[in-house]
């Protein structure tokens, strides 16, 4: 019940702060790029764009949302409310993933990617992965500049290998690396059970860490500079 309310409100906030508009514009831009490319590249390009959406946008927007709340001292209010940190984590993650899923569906259909359910599952998993990372980072820091700085290593660790993997520039032994599994799913390629298991384990661990970090942030809630 509370989770449903939270989720609906998160969507409302995101609409209010112009996220939907921004994503709408991005989607249009992505489609223009897709159709400007030669037919032969379209599949890989679509996979890259779909992956980059949660990877770049999800991570960054989650950080921005949490920092914004911090700067308005909203975490103090959460600390003194009957809300569970896990409900907060799930609601925020789900609401951002939903946007990524919509963008992914549009791009996949536009590019004519096969295996739509697999593409969407891959998008959802990458969305969870990156938004949780963004959330964990954002609870630890106090300014937007700091956040941008700290996202760099995350992008290097997650985004870069996945892109290299997409273009088969990495040794196949690395195919079970969680970000690469996501990329394989989005690109409609095959993936291993071990890869999925590892990805699942990483996601569970990140949920656990995110809950811990959010609880801690609420307890020591204070102001930040934006």
């Amino acid at each position, binding site marked *: 019940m509370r989770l449903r309310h939270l989720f609906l409100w998160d969507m409302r906030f995101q609409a209010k702060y112009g996220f939907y508009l921004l994503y709408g514009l991005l989607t249009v831009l992505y489609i223009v790029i897709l159709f400007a490319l030669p037919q032969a590249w379209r599949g890989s390009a679509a996979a890259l764009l779909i992956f980059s959406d949660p990877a770049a946008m999800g991570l960054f927007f989650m950080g921005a949302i949490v920092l914004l709340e911090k700067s308005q*001292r909203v975490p103090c209010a959460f600390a003194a409310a*009957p809300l569970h940190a896990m409900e907060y984590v799930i609601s925020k993650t789900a609401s951002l993933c939903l946007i990524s899923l919509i963008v992914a569906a549009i791009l996949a259909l536009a590019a004519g990617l096969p295996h739509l359910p697999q593409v969407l599952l891959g998008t959802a998993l990458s969305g969870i992965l990156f938004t949780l990372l963004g959330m964990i980072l954002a609870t630890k820091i106090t300014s937007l500049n700091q956040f941008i700085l700290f996202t760099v290593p995350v992008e290097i660790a997650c985004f870069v290998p996945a892109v290299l993997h997409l273009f088969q520039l990495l040794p196949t032994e690395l195919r079970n690396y969680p970000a690469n599994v996501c990329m394989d799913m989005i690109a409609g390629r095959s993936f291993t059970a071990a890869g999925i298991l590892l990805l699942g384990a990483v996601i569970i661990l990140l949920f656990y860490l995110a809950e811990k970090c959010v609880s801690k942030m609420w307890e020591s809630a204070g102001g930040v500079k934006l």
Partner: protein
Amino acid sequence: MIQVNDLYFSYTTKPFIEAMNFTVEKGEIFGFLGPSGAGKSTLQKILLGMLPGYRGSAIVNGTECRHRTNRFYENIGVDFEFSTMYEKLSARENLQFFSSLYEKSGRPIEELLEMVGLQNDADKRVADFSKGMKSRLNFIKALLHDPALLFLDEPTSGLDPANNRMMKDLILEEKKREKTILLTTHNMQDATELCDRVAFIANGKIYALDSPHNLIMSKGATRVTYTWMDHGEHTASCPIDRLSGDEVLQKLIAQNRLKSIHSSEPTLNDIFMEITGRTLL
């Protein structure tokens, strides 16, 4: 409602809150009065279950604070020292959102808005609110779920006289609804007016705890001060209960020679100073 026994807490290794004991009864307005850094907000945070690392016992609504669960907050309303709202959302949206966090359906939002005179500003963004409007809005946010216990951190600080008056009336209104209210302040006049009992806090310790009236009466009675002219101005003073024994005053009255006369009772501020050796501000 609240029982604190032998409470110790510190953010660091240096002792801070030490050997605190007090109880707060249902329906009471209880004030923490003390200078900046005394530990008032810290104490509130402990009672809110936000600082579980204390020693001793602090029981709120029947729950030991360090063992609180999330349900603990269904019956507690908190008004922090600062605004804790989404600035880009309207007042009404903020209230709707925060109200959705509670299981209890609570009090109607329109009624609360009207109570603090914000019904015509409800659709404005909080960012466009004045300080007084924000503090009223944050106050009713604490009432949304109709909690039995209210924590108000500096509810009157930084408000102009009109808003200050309004806030005090709102607090007294909640007392009439049988809420238990804990507030912190360093304004002794507000404390005198609002609180059934106050605790003097300085350096993490309670120096005195009683009704404002008893505290004021405990230290010296009201004095009468008078002046007269006799080759220059003279001033003398005398406790109000010994006026009949003051021969100078008697004579001055008989000869109609008094230039001025006034009585002054010690304020809570004077008493605070006398007991703790510190000023309130």
